């Protein structure tokens, strides 16, 4: 916290001393969440038993940036979240980087950059930039946030535009992920008795994002297509409370997302399809022991948190939003996920969201999710008030 405030202070002072163009921004959202119906005891990390309602869903960001000159800018943003049992208002660096743009075609960013995966991962913390409260949890799972939120490293990016063939944007990001920064994953390992002292960490992470938008004024103006692919390896020194021996666990995760969005004056339509493959690597002797019947129950418990076998996840969603007025928008989303692996689960989620913009700074949202899965049928009601400046 002190470091972030100090860094922002330095940005402000530096920009005043040399008359640079400093800008700052912030967001605060408070959400009420209540689940109804036959919710399973375990369903990801965030919807664990909140049938009496919960206000423990708060997000805050504060950031600033300085345009040193027309090509070079630096900035950072801190984030603080409380997310049910997780977060506890811990303040972490959301992003912070130096950005040099050689031309509109080519630029480089270095530091902690947001990960451009799918249409929304990069802006997943920007509540005012979308209609729903939660993104599709089948693709942008909150439980998976620690792995994909931001990458510490570098990215190259650029944009090519022509009236005749439209716009082509690209981003390639390479580096590593600080999993510990994004709370709760290591805590979850401790809860299920995987580790005496959890230490899950990223090894490397690479993402490529390509986006094409059709030409302005053409028949399909407003249509955007995107492809993104991410590969990463995470590692953990597993010290099981029960088990054969301590061992090193490697997890290779590959994610591909195909996206389409059609944005018109009164309405927006969109869809995304994701294929994610988890490939864990466990020493053979350890795997043989855990395959024994005596460990079956333990292993089943762990599989929800830490993949011990290959898992194949396919998910997609489609949505349509209608802007009834400049202030009021309603959106319907249908989302499906299919997990194949040791634990096979399917789920279908229907979401109805409403957004009301009181003014440029204050947004109110209401949302209801109806979830049908192999493990139960339940609903989630959310109400959110957001402020941004």
């Amino acid at each position, binding site marked *: 916290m002190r470091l972030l405030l100090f860094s922002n202070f330095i940005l402000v002072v530096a920009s005043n001393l040399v008359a640079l163009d400093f800008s700052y921004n912030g967001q605060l959202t408070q959400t009420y969440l209540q689940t109804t119906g036959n919710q399973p005891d375990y369903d990801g990390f965030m919807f664990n038993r909140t049938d009496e309602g919960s206000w423990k869903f708060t997000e805050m960001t504060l950031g600033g940036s300085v345009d040193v000159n027309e090509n070079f800018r630096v900035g950072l943003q801190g984030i603080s979240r409380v997310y049910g049992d997780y977060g506890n208002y811990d303040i972490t660096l959301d992003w912070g980087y130096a950005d040099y743009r050689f031309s509109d075609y080519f630029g480089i960013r270095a530091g902690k950059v947001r990960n451009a995966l799918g249409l929304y991962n990069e802006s997943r913390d920007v509540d005012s*930039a979308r209609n729903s409260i939660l993104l599709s949890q089948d693709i942008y799972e909150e439980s998976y946030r620690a792995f994909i939120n931001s990458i510490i490293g570098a990215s190259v990016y650029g*944009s090519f535009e022509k009236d005749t063939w439209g*716009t082509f944007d690209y981003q390639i990001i390479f580096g590593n992920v600080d999993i510990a920064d994004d709370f709760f994953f290591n805590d979850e390992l401790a809860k299920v008795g995987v580790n005496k002292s959890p230490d899950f960490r990223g090894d490397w992470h690479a993402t490529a994002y390509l986006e094409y938008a059709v030409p*302005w*004024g053409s028949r399909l*103006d407003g249509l955007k297509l995107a492809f993104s692919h991410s590969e990463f390896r995470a590692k953990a020194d597993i010290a099981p409370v029960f088990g054969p021996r301590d061992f090193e666990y490697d997890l290779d995760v590959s994610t591909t997302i195909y996206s389409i969005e059609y944005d018109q*004056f009164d309405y927006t339509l969109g869809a995304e399809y994701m294929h994610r493959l988890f490939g864990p690597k466990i020493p053979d002797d350890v795997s043989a022991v855990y395959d024994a019947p005596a460990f079956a129950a333990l292993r089943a418990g762990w599989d929800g948190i830490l993949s011990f076998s290959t898992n194949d996840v396919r998910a997609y969603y489609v949505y349509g939003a209608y802007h009834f007025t*400049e202030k009021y928008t309603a959106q319907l989303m249908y989302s499906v996920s299919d997990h194949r692996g040791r634990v096979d689960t399917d789920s279908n989620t229907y979401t109805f969201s409403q957004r009301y913009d009181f003014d440029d700074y204050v947004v109110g949202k209401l949302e209801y999710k109806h979830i049908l899965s192999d493990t139960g049928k339940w609903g989630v009601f959310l109400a959110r008030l957001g402020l*941004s400046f």
Partner: protein
Amino acid sequence: MNKNYFLIVLIFILSSSCFGDIVLIASKASGIKSISKSELVSIYSGRGKRIGSKSVKPVMLKGGDVHEAFCKIFLKRSPSSVSKIWKKLVFTGKASMIKTLSDEADMIRQVSSHSEYLGYVDRKNINDDVVIVEVR
């Protein structure tokens, strides 16, 4: 049939005149005379920063009919959609928030005194301090 056709044309003309005739403007000192459609969309979407080799900064009105018409006619988006694009850029560190101005008089004043600014007003409010930028 002819009556319906006439009615449609009339409605179109009336609705067009409600929006007025929006023109892009730049400072006389900028030397900017024209802009391609893709450059315009790129600049107002925060992706591009140049017209040819000239560096530009877009400015927008805070709201109102002229702003709505500009978003609809030039960007083919709703004002809220344009606002979402900028919030996304700002909160992911990719751009500073676009400068917004309260009215057209302020728009003309600011654009005329900043050679890098690109703005828009209703044609009837234009004066000699700024030049019209043609969209090719």
